[in-house]
């Protein structure tokens, strides 16, 4: 028995040494967290693809140092994301982290990120409060807030599209509430009225019961869905004969390029707003979309663009520091100070709360060369998460909820 004990102790000692976090000089380690399995795997994969494309373009080098990517699967489960974040920070000793998709994960990670004082880039997580009422010093958002594109869009729906009454139907979670909330606020302040609101479970399979309830007297229907749900919704909206009677508008994800190629004519004419469109006609975007297509044989979704651009953000900060990223405070400041003018989505800078000020594009689904695309029909330049409101007054009001 004595012998066995010795062996076990020795094994533990060796393991302990091997498992100690490595903190030697060398490559810049970037921890990356997205769902690569589970129901959100496809979106997570897009985000990762965007990042990989960028890292390839720069040959995994920035500021004179090698870049090492450590990607971990969060399964879309907040507790798993936290465990993986712990691994990246405490075991792998990463210099900074990036990633995240769901708001729940975003909120779950925030306290840990703050406690470990590790810079974190959120390319997609759009929960408003992460850069508003519950802002975190160490989180830099390079994506958007759920309400951000919807503030101008509500205004647009009233003034340009001329709608006066609207029914909304959206997934019943914070992304849905915040998007619809932002839209409703500006639409109603302009003089319109949201006369009907419907919330569907995130796991919704059949929209028939909801479509049957939609008031036929509204000027338009605003919809927020993504993934499989948006395909199903679009199809059923047409099958119910609603498409010809009531125009459909919605949040950017409803016609986002992750789902658009799988849609048919039912999507034609749908107008949505987002800070990106793969059909955006700029040199930077054309280059990105074609490179992305060449590598992955897919249309670039906003998820893909998010981490291509988020990656550019990180690289810009590393370059600005000449690769001297070991002081996290300095790295964080460089991330916050970065100002990028040549992203696929256009020019972006951060506001004082760590959220981008960026263009919002109003897009209409058209068929061009046989493929559906989100044609940009209008642009709201340099939109802040607070739209035209005073930030202090804005923050004094409660978060958009159902």
């Amino acid at each position, binding site marked *: 028995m004595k012998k066995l004990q010795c062996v076990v102790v020795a094994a*533990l000692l060796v393991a302990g040494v091997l498992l100690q976090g490595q903190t030697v000089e060398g490559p810049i380690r970037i921890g990356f967290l997205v769902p690569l399995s589970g129901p959100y795997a496809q979106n997570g994969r897009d985000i990762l693809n965007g990042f990989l494309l960028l890292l390839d373009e720069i040959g995994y080098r920035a500021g004179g140092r090698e870049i090492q990517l450590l990607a971990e699967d969060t399964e879309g489960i907040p507790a798993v994301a936290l465990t993986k974040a712990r691994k990246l920070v405490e075991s792998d000793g990463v210099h900074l982290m990036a990633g995240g998709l769901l708001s*729940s994960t975003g909120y779950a990670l925030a306290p840990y990120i703050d406690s470990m004082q590790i810079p974190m880039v959120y390319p997609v997580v759009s929960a408003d409060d992460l850069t508003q009422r519950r802002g975190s010093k160490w989180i830099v958002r390079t994506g958007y807030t759920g309400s951000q594109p919807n503030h101008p869009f509500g205004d647009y729906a009233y003034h340009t599209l001329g709608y006066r009454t609207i029914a909304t139907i959206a997934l019943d979670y914070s992304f849905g509430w915040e998007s619809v909330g932002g839209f409703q606020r500006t639409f109603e302040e302009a003089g319109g009225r949201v006369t009907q609101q419907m919330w569907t479970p995130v796991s919704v399979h059949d929209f028939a019961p909801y479509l049957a309830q939609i008031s036929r007297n509204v000027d338009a229907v605003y919809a927020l869905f993504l993934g499989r749900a948006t395909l199903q919704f679009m199809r059923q909206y047409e099958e119910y004969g609603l498409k010809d009677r009531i125009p459909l508008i919605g949040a950017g994800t409803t016609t986002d390029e992750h789902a658009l190629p799988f849609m048919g004519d039912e999507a034609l004419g749908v107008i949505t707003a987002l800070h990106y469109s793969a059909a955006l006609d700029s040199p930077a975007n054309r280059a990105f979309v074609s490179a992305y297509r060449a590598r992955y044989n897919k249309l670039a979704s906003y998820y893909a663009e998010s981490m291509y651009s988020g990656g550019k953000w990180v690289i810009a900060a590393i370059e600005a520091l000449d690769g001297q990223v070991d002081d996290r405070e300095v790295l964080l400041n460089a991330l916050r100070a970065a100002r990028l003018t040549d992203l696929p989505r256009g020019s972006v800078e951060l506001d004082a709360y760590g959220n981008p000020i960026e263009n919002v594009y109003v897009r209409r689904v058209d068929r061009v060369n046989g493929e559906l695309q989100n044609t940009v029909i209008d642009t709201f330049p340099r939109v802040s998460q607070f739209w035209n409101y005073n930030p202090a007054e804005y923050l004094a009001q409660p978060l958009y909820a159902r």
Partner: protein
Amino acid sequence: MAEPDAALGGPRPPSNTESMSPRGWRLAIVLVLGLVFSAGPLLFSSYWVGLLTQMVILAILAMSLDILLGYTGLPSLGHAAFFGVAAYAVGVLATVHGAGFWTCVAGGLLVGTLLSAVLGLIVSHVRDVYFLMITLALGMVLWGLSFRWIPVTGGDNGISDIPTLAAHSGLPFAGPLALYYVTLLVFIACAGVMALIVKSPFGLTLRGIRENEGRMKSLGFNTWLHCYLSYVIAGAFASVAGVAWAYYNGFVSPTYLDLTASSELFLMVTLGGPATLVGPVLGATAIVLLKNVMSAYTARWLLVLGIVYIVTILVAPKGVWNLGPSGRSR
């Protein structure tokens, strides 16, 4: 805690049912687990201390399910509900009401236990696959509630910013190591009490119900009551784990009580060895380890995990604890 079933005192030959495999295998398991859990954290990095904390908390949870599944023979697929609800109680009390540490702990235990006391009234009437289905359904309802009762639970965003154990309890030691050893003490206390329960006259009746409920009734046992109490006990210990988990992670979300959580728990018990208490500890440890080590090396880790499950079930149908050349030749 080595052999909770070796309950009945006096010297006896090693031919008991639930402690029948070779002693060497089990001794090795207990030795390795004991060493890793007691001294491991002093050697490992803080990340591994965190994983060990997870293992210890989930071990409490798995043992609590073992009372129900292994000892009483009631297969629950909704056991994570109590774990999650207790965690939510801590989250709500700590963040919304700004309650103190002991209020949160007591609140979590009370809410989780009361819930099991109420649900137990319903589920204790059914057995076998019906028990499986009704616990599954109730678990789904509670998951749905955590998801939809937004004013209280925060919906899918859950509740974050639960204070750390050190900050909340005024414990003089902060950091992962302190949290780990506090959790370990809770684990030892829970394991001790559960080991006593399964050795007690009451524990004997649970096994009797698993073996032959009809005979139990005709002998004079109100088996409904015993099943009910078993369910409440399991719920209470799951609540302990839930409270610990809330402090460990610092947030609560609906995934704590979803079907995936409940079925993973089920696997921990069945893989480790039901009706042994040590088995579930082993199961919890192995699954946490596998998930985190495997996913670092391959994107196909889910597949690998699935294969491991299947192989274990084929090689050790009674769980890893009961593995080894069988002494069942008689």
